[in-house]
């Protein structure tokens, strides 16, 4: 474990330098969390290939060697971020460059009553209390080394809070942009939706370069109060050579409605852990995901849905269209605790292999300790339906176009699940462009 020790001592040294630069900020509640996190990292290290959770994704490129945290944000222009901004949404936009808030490109505007949108560093005292109560509040297991890495080096982040009964109809946009500086960036998002509130948040990870040597370790925490309705979308548009290890923790209370959408559109290695805990009764929770890797990309969606209380339902649909020599991994765990009677859980993972060299791993994992539950899962992998292709051809549609039509229809199911029309149009355009590239990538020799 010499390499691992070198990595951790590298991060420890970087942490000491970071701490020394804080100039008094080291006494803040946030910094207490950072210290807990670096201690966690020192104790447990980062994941290795021996971890069951990393069985199909070799963590070495992400975990072997210290990625020095990026300290100064690179320059970012309004033109550079324009393709990543959802046009036609007037709502708040928080822009972060290399993990640091960029006020000049961000806007908050007039918010409805009871809604606050801040950067972590600019939070008012009321929001600060919410941050202290919720940030990094979930205990981290040994397998969550990357979440600890994020917390240890978090400099800034986005905070969205909605008071009880308040509504934010327009999606709040959070844009995490890498300017291509090699090293570690640590985007952080906290959404706290109080009882009976409604909110929608879209996070986009983007890069202005191919981003060789860039490791993004992100964490999002989402607290969905009783009866609250929250929709959260993540769009991964990393640089083609970038690495990403992301974690999303969700807690849901009674009668909550939560929907997550994960679009893995670009990035060399993209690992996304989603863990949601259904703590109250009558919750409806939905996880949607679409992965479109090509070339030598590797995407791993590692999801866990925990049913703790009775009478909840969860739905999970992840799809992949895999081109080139790319590798798409899905793990879907549904953990039904003994008390969670009458759980209704459904999970589906569907993959289309667009080249002979593409590869997938699909692993449903049901752990059920209650006796009165409805849990089902399905996994399919294949190629486009030759009968459907011929049908289209027989109506004058060329083979390549027919492949495009069928692939778009396959992926479109997940785009259509986005509630907000403007966001849907935006994602449709990104997905369509990416699919063209995936369809064109027939793999073959390097």
């Amino acid at each position, binding site marked *: 474990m010499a390499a691992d020790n070198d990595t951790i001592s590298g991060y420890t040294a970087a942490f000491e330098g970071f701490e020394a630069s804080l100039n008094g900020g080291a006494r803040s509640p946030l910094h207490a969390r950072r210290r807990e996190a670096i201690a966690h990292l020192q104790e447990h290290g980062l994941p290795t290939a021996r971890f069951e959770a990393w069985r199909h994704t070799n963590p070495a490129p992400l975990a072997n060697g210290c990625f020095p945290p990026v300290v100064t944000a690179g320059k970012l222009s309004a033109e550079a971020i324009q393709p990543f901004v959802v046009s036609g949404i007037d709502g708040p936009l928080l822009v972060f460059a290399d993990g640091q808030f960029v006020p000049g490109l961000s806007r908050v505007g007039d918010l409805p009553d009871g809604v606050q949108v801040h950067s972590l560093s600019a939070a008012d005292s009321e929001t600060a209390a919410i941050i202290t109560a919720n940030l990094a509040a979930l205990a981290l297991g040994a397998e969550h080394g990357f979440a600890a890495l994020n917390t240890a080096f978090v400099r800034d982040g986005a905070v969205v809070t909605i008071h009880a009964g308040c509504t934010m109809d327009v999606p709040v946009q959070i844009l995490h942009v890498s300017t291509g500086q090699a090293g570690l960036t640590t985007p952080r998002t906290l959404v706290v939706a109080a009882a009976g509130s409604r909110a929608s948040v879209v996070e986009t990870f983007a890069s202005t370069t191919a981003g060789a040597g860039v490791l993004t370790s992100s964490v999002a925490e989402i607290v969905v109060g009783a009866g609250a309705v929250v929709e959260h979308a993540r769009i991964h548009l990393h640089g083609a050579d970038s690495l990403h290890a992301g974690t999303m923790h969700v807690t849901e209370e009674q009668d909550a409605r939560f929907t997550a959408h994960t679009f893995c559109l670009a990035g060399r290695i993209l690992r996304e852990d989603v863990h949601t805990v259904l703590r109250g009764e009558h919750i409806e929770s939905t996880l949607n995901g679409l992965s479109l890797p090509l070339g030598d990309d590797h995407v791993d969606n590692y999801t866990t849905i925990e049913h703790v209380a009775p009478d909840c339902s969860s739905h999970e649909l992840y799809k992949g269209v895999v081109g080139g020599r790319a590798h798409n991994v899905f793990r879907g765990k549904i953990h039904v605790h003994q008390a969670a009677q009458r759980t209704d859980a459904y999970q589906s993972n569907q993959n289309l292999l667009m080249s002979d060299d593409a590869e997938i791993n699909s692993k449903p994992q049901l752990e059920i300790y209650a006796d009165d539950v409805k849990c089902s899962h399905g996994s399919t992998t294949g190629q486009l339906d030759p009968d*459907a292709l011929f049908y289209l051809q*027989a*109506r*004058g*549609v060329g083979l390549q176009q027919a492949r495009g*039509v069928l692939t778009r229809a396959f992926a479109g199911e997940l785009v259509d699940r986005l509630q907000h029309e403007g966001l849907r149009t935006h994602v449709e355009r990104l997905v369509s462009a990416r699919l063209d590239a995936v369809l064109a990538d027939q793999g073959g020799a390097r």
Partner: protein
Amino acid sequence: MLKITNLHATVDGTEILKGINLEVAPGEIHAIMGPNGSGKSTLAQVLAGHDAFTVTEGSVRYENEDLLDMAPEDRARKGVFLAFQYPVEIPGVNSAYFLRTGLNEVRKARGEEEIDAYDFLALIREKMALVEMDESFLKRSVNEGFSGGEKKRHEVLQMAVLEPRLAILDETDSGLDIDALRVVAHGVNQLHTPQNSAIVVTHYQRLLEYIVPDFVHVLMDGRIVRSGGKELALQLEDKGYDWIREETAAAAAATQPAGA
């Protein structure tokens, strides 16, 4: 318009078509009848270009071009249309998009401009009325959840939109009740002009009461064993196929040299 000469085709190494000869002139309607497994659907699919079948011998000329040399989409663009016996379900592709995409490809091939959404809607409304289909189908995924009759009407709707020169109907009547049969036949008849031809593949004579053929051919064991006018269909309805089978066998025996 269409000239099939000594066409042989196999699927997975098994010969299904064993020397088909058929000529279709502009404006003619040809019915192809025959028992199950005789090769009727294979012939239809080979003409449309399905790659499950391998042509091992013979030729097909369409409008003085080599049809077998064309990709399926090029055949469609040049006016060959196959109404599928088993229309395929395409989840996530709505009928309007499917119809418009196909139409625009065919229009481009004819040197016409693509149709815009407004004109397309007007066109599709007119054609849907022809096959008595409700407009709500336009928003539904192609064939998904359609009843057997709805699928067949949808095939005729596609034909009405694409206006083919040569329509091949592969057992479009199978599984239809009498009302649906009448609607489908009406759609086909509306499209019939002195320039446009049709090959109607059917198992039963019933459809031919509504679509009156100029010629009836009996396909058996991969060959056309008898051709005639529309009265042949009535004879088949009356007497079945066995008498043709027997006569064909007898004729074959008569050509064998004595004592062989």
